[in-house]
């Protein structure tokens, strides 16, 4: 987490966008410091992708102002384009070219020259573990490989600000870990990352600051800790062998919520060791046997629910 005062990489005020009558972004303000990771979090249809498309100069906007890497989005789109890199939700690689040719294509478009372009391509292939597949057509790549190639293509031009629109959606856990590691390395090298995700865990894991977007409005902005603080949801879950045990425990513990079907109790708790010890002591004194115990610290799902009044899309439906 960078605490030193730094300049704004992305500064947005009052950004608005409608498609016809449908308001997609209803006046958003964002300030992303250089060299940090910022995550825009929200369910499907919240407007995340629209925000990325606007900030990456792909589509216009109806109101507000935005500066990216010091350049005005509306006035100097080419200067913005020269400073940014974008990796979208669906890999934009050229299927009829090999991995290496894809990277050389990007190098050519950045006017790197033949020797420098080849060197850059080789370096990125190596970094993204694609050297072996370098001469194979991108159409033969697995999902994870395509995503890595996509990001490698974005990095050819050494962008200072990188937009990642749901970079790990649809990836297997191992590929997701690799992507996270790459993002951390990029930030360590001074790049600013603007990441959208519907995975709360991902924002928690990577972001210095998180903004929660719901129906075109920002409902909260802060560090992951700030967002989690003060949000109810931390509890200990106890499961019992039979209804008698459940009844006895409910009597002994008092203020709990119970689920008769699952034979579980939810006891509000911060999940700390002293609290757990006290809880177990009380159960022991009442001679109640507990089959299973699990600790739930408040996560961003709880945050999301508390802020918007509805669960996040990731919980509603697994894609």
């Amino acid at each position, binding site marked *: 987490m960078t605490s030193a005062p730094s300049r704004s990489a992305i500064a947005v005020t009052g950004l608005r966008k409608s498609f016809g009558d449908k308001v997609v972004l209803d006046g958003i303000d964002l300030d992303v410091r250089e060299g940090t990771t910022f995550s825009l979090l929200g369910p499907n249809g919240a407007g995340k992708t629209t925000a990325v498309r606007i900030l990456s100069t792909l*589509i216009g906007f109806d109101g507000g102002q935005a500066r990216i890497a010091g350049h005005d989005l509306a006035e100097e789109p080419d200067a913005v384009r*020269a400073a940014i890199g*974008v990796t979208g939700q669906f890999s934009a690689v050229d299927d*009829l070219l090999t991995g290496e040719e894809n990277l050389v294509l990007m190098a050519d478009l950045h006017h790197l020259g033949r020797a420098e372009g080849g060197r850059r391509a080789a370096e990125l292939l190596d970094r993204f573990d694609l050297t072996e597949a370098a001469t194979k057509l991108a159409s033969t790549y697995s999902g994870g490989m395509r995503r890595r190639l996509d990001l490698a*293509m974005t990095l050819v*031009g050494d962008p200072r600000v990188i937009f990642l629109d749901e970079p790990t959606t649809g990836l297997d856990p191992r590929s997701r870990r690799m992507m996270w590691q790459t993002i951390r390395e990029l930030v360590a090298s001074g790049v600013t990352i603007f990441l959208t995700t519907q995975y709360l865990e991902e924002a928690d894991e990577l972001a210095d600051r998180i903004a929660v977007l719901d129906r075109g409005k920002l409902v909260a902005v802060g560090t992951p800790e700030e967002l989690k603080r003060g949000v109810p949801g931390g509890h200990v879950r106890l499961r019992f062998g039979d209804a008698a045990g459940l009844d006895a425990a409910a009597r002994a513990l008092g203020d709990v919520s119970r689920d008769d079907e699952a034979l579980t109790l939810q006891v509000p708790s911060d999940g700390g060791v002293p609290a757990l010890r006290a809880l177990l002591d009380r159960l022991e004194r009442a001679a109640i046997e507990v089959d299973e115990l699990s600790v739930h610290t408040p996560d961003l799902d709880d945050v999301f629910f508390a802020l918007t009044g509805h669960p996040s899309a990731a919980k509603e439906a697994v894609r």
Partner: protein
Amino acid sequence: MSDAVTMLRRNFRHTLRNPGSVIMTIGMPVVLLLLFVGVLGGALNAGLGTAAHGGDYIDYVVAGVLLMTVGYGASTTAMAVNRDMTSGIIARFRTMAISRASVLTGHVIGSTARTVFSTALVVGVALLLGFRPAADPVRWLAAVGLVALLALALSWLAVAVGLLARTAEGTSPFVLVVQLLPFLSSAFVSPDSMSAPVRWFAAYEPFTPIIDTLRGLLLGTPINDSGVAALAWCVVLALAGYLWARALFRRDPSR
């Protein structure tokens, strides 16, 4: 400019990777050539009279088949542009500081070159089948120029169609029109033998003067005012395709 060259190189590489598209572009006209010359030619030729051409049906039909070759080439381009659009690679190019239209220019130049190459191969096959053109070098040059201009015009239209269609299937109306219009022109039979409404249509559609001009150039027969009409149509189609494609490309891709 260098961005357009990069895009053109990408386009040629695509063609080499995907030879199927070229084979289709050449294969269909060759099949038509065989069909019309070997199967239907005898009967059709009887109705033509020998005034319009040297006498052999193949000499009459080659110009029409060449035009269809150009049409198939353009259809391939429409699908290629559409693939670029739907795969998101055009979105990637748009977020880069490169000449905006370079990707379209690359497609058009690549498509035109590919089509001229295809038509040359079809002419080769026609020669093997007994096509005996009577053109002098100047007329050959003019014929190549006309094919190139037509290829350019249809390529720009194809780019626009590729940008417009939401899926590859969406380009099929264009393919259909390009394949159907030659049948309603002087490509295979003289419009004089058609029913009145079709004859009227054939007289005013763009492909008739283009085919007549091409045939005149190849066979050394008189062209009359078809030449001017052919050039005018090509220029109009090219300009319309270019402006349409440019407008579509500049439009917010808000989907």
